[in-house]
């Protein structure tokens, strides 16, 4: 079924680059791997959330008295409880614009209005139905265009205080326009002059819908407040963002909040920032600190976080030979009712809207817009899939109009070493040539498309994309050589399925010269593991891996010093071997276990820090956007049924620049996961929202890719440095932005219609086909 394809994989000694067994593999196949849903605390109560039925309304009154009288109910948390000085009423990673539960107004259907805290979940559900809330509807805006209308009322009267310190990469410029919560700009060159110089200027508007992360593990958290601090067990993928937020909510220092992470059952960006934990902390506070657990039901996930729906308008000026000259991009992001991480995401999506192409005259306006729908946040690809759908679709429209081959058009324009990115940053280690040729070859691009049977047509499409990573960023790690010669990797990176526990152990093993089997990564516990910014942005293998490598260097020094003292020879005479040391020139090896035993050192500790720097100018968007560029490519062959409009993907090749692959199997898995996400986004994934109500809030109605959807012929291409010494790049999001546009372009090639609005449903294909006939 698959072609697993790593060209010229260099042979290296050590664990890195090997298909070593995954950490905890045995636990994972036997059902014993622990997830946050498995956590239980003695005396634990259970919370159930009452959610608003109206998308935008004033709350006239809340009466929870009947619910409070139900036997087994301990308390009901409502907005009026938040007037207490003991709790911060609002939260949010950048703007604290979101009440823990609605206070006097609800801003989207599904917003928490009350939390019933009871002895068991069934009692809480029963009592919840007895809460009476009186709403008075307000005008509501479900898409960014209507929220930006001249007569639109403000969804938020006050943005609250903004945190510039915690997010040094933020470019904050909220306009004095109702419902714009941030505006990111690029002003580079002279875009009007560029258009004037162009032979033709192409215009198009491309849309992508709101999506669900649909981690099979829903959000779940337990909070207990005892003594002078709080402990949180959570499915959150970035425990330190939870620690920060819970400390803010409970008005206590961060050092008094302990966040304990287990394995995470999928995250995809949906668990990066706290969305449930502040509410659980408030619920525990409401019952005097007793532990409270809340596990969301699947339908509630649709009211918790989503991917931004986006409207991308592109004007692109081109010379007759296909050279791209100028681009103006206007991107409207539906942020939903609360800011969450939108102020940052629209920056990253904004600077990415030029794609991996050399364009000198650039003008970008990227707006985060409040709307009365489920808040939007980071989602695998972080804004890039929305803009990539636009620019790669438009590129094939340009190719068709100018009579150029889509591959040649890209070759003429993609970034090469030394070229400048949309932000002016000079780039290197670029590999679009190999990616383009590689994925095209793997779907058999050369020659004619294979013919289809009656009533069906086939076509091919390609897409190239570029994604950055959060910059600046910091990871810190501790390595502990234990008394038995084993090595603990004490790092705040969570295991979300990306294989971080395995890859960090591999990197630690090689850097510290300890055999892989003796390395044990620990799960994050903010009380014990040193700080890490976030497990997201495809950064952990690079960033935490960098911190681990630095710590290993220090550890090797510590080992040599200890051995020098024990053996009475100068440090320079000590030579490291795997799991041991020896005196230079001698054959006898002193094992690390023996070194530790004989020296009585107990354990050896070493730490490392990995930091990156960057910043963009607020007016021009120029500067260093990213410490690494993730280069992705996809080529697809599809068959379109002209009778039904159904699209089937026959062959697909996904390519990423990996630099150096740490674990080949996980690298393939991550890339295949990108494909599964992208396929769903191309063909069927969509939160259907009517009048502010999500109509398909269930995995029976919201489709995610299954075995049925994957192409039979699926190839993965990972580009590595030939010498085996390449820099490690993240792979978690490199290819996902390229999948949907490659499929869309293949549909265009097959039947001549370009559906500019995802997903490419049979209905849309048929409508376009019929429209063309008329």
């Amino acid at each position, binding site marked *: 079924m698959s072609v697993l394809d790593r060209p010229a994989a260099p042979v290296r000694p050590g664990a890195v680059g090997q298909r070593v067994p995954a950490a905890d593999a045995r636990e994972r196949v036997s059902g014993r791997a622990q997830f946050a849903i498995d956590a239980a605390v003695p005396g634990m109560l259970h919370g159930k959330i009452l959610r608003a039925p109206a998308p935008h309304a004033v709350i006239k009154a809340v009466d929870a008295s009947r619910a409070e009288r139900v036997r087994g109910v301990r308390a009901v948390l409502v907005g009026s409880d938040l007037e207490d000085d003991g709790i911060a009423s609002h939260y949010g990673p950048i703007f604290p614009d979101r009440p823990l539960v609605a206070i006097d107004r609800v801003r989207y259907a599904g917003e928490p209005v009350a939390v019933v805290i009871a002895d068991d979940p069934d009692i809480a559900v029963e009592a919840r139905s007895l809460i009476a809330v009186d709403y008075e509807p307000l005008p509501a805006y479900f898409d960014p265009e209507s929220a930006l209308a001249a007569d639109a009322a403000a969804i938020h009267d006050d943005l609250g205080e903004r945190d510039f310190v915690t997010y040094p990469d933020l470019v904050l410029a909220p306009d004095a326009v109702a419902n714009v919560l941030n505006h990111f700009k690029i002003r580079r060159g002279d875009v009007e002059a560029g258009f004037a110089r162009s032979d033709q200027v192409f215009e198009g508007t491309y849309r992508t819908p709101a999506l669900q992360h649909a981690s*099979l593990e829903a959000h779940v958290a337990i909070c207990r407040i005892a003594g002078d601090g709080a402990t949180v067990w959570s499915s959150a993928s970035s425990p330190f963002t939870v620690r920060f937020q819970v400390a803010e909510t409970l008005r206590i220092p961060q050092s008094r909040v302990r966040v304990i992470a287990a394995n995470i059952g999928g995250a995809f960006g949906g668990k990066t920032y706290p969305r449930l934990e502040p509410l659980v902390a408030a619920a525990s506070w409401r019952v005097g600190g007793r532990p409270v657990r809340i596990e969301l039901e699947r339908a509630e996930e649709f009211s918790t976080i989503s991917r931004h729906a986006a409207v991308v308008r592109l004007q692109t000026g081109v010379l007759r030979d296909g050279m791209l000259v100028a681009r103006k991009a206007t991107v409207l992001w539906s942020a939903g009712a609360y800011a969450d991480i939108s102020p940052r995401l629209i920056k990253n999506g904004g600077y990415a809207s030029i794609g991996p192409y050399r364009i000198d005259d650039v003008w970008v306006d990227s707006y985060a817009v409040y709307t009365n729908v489920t808040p939007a946040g980071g989602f695998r690809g972080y804004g890039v899939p929305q803009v990539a759908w636009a620019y790669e679709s438009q590129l094939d429209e340009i190719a068709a109009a100018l009579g150029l081959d889509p591959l040649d058009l890209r070759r003429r324009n993609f970034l090469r070493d030394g070229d400048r990115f949309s932000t002016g940053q000079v780039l290197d280690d670029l590999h679009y040539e190999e990616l383009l040729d590689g994925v095209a070859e793997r779907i058999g691009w050369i020659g004619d498309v294979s013919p289809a049977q009656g009533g069906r047509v086939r076509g091919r499409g390609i897409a190239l994309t570029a994604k950055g990573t959060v910059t600046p960023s910091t990871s810190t790690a501790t390595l502990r050589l234990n008394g038995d010669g084993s090595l603990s990797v004490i790092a705040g990176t969570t295991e979300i399925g990306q294989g971080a526990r395995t890859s960090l152990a591999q990197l630690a093993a090689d850097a510290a010269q300890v055999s892989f089997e003796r390395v044990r990564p620990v799960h994050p516990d903010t009380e014990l593991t040193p700080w890490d910014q976030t497990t997201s942005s495809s950064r952990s293998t690079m960033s935490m891996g960098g911190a681990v490598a630095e710590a290993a260097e220090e550890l090797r020094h510590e080992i040599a010093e200890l051995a020098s003292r024990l053996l009475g020879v100068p440090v320079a005479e000590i030579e490291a071997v795997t799991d041991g040391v020896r005196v230079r020139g001698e054959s006898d090896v002193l094992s690390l276990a023996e070194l530790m035993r004989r020296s009585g050192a107990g354990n050896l500790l070493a730490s490392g820090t990995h930091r990156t720097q960057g910043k963009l100018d607020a007016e021009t968007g120029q500067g260093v956007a990213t410490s690494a560029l993730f280069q992705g490519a996809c080529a697809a062959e599809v068959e379109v049924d002209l009778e039904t409009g159904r699209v089937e993907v026959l062959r697909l090749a996904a390519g990423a620049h990996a630099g150096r692959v740490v674990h080949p199997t996980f690298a393939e*898995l991550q890339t295949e996961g990108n494909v599964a996400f992208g396929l769903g986004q191309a063909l069927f994934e969509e939160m259907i929202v009517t009048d502010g109500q999500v109509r398909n809030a269930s995995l029976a109605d919201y489709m995610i890719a299954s075995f049925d959807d994957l192409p039979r012929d699926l190839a993965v291409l990972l580009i590595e440095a030939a010498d085996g010494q390449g820099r490690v790049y993240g792979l978690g999001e490199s290819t996902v932005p390229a999948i949907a546009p490659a499929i869309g372009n293949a549909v265009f090639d097959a039947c001549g219609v370009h559906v500019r609005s995802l997903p490419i449903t049979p209905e849309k294909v048929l409508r376009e086909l019929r429209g063309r006939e008329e």
Partner: protein
Amino acid sequence: MTTGQIELTVNGEPHALDVSSTDTLLAVLRRDLALLGAREGCGVGMCGACTVLVDGLPVSGCLMPALAAAGRSVTTVEGLEGPDGELHPIQQAYVEHTAFQCSYCTPGFVLSTKALLDGNPDPTEDEARAYLAGNLCRCGSYVKILDAVMDAAARLRASG
């Protein structure tokens, strides 16, 4: 809400349990028997993360009322290992192919694989894909899962 006592066999051991009419089999396995391998994903029988075998056939534990399991024999992923804790050949194949990412769905896939191979020891790739289409892996580990399934089938056939 009524309650009743049921007797059922779980992983070969008999149990007598007090359950309510609203309890699902999944809830009882997790709450009363501390068997945590079956997990809720969607709550409506669409994702397969809660798959268990009832009298050898795959069932969504989130949909089956616990009362309906009375007198039946239930196998969870915890029941697949041998007496000395050795992994079942299907589990071993999943380990060797790293046929998972977050692994939240893995126990469900492993049990569906067992049901597939019990009924069809020599499936084609298409048959395996069709049979397993009722289990969802959001991480998208399908390629490796299929490799593991075909490998497990070969091993089981070889060992007779």
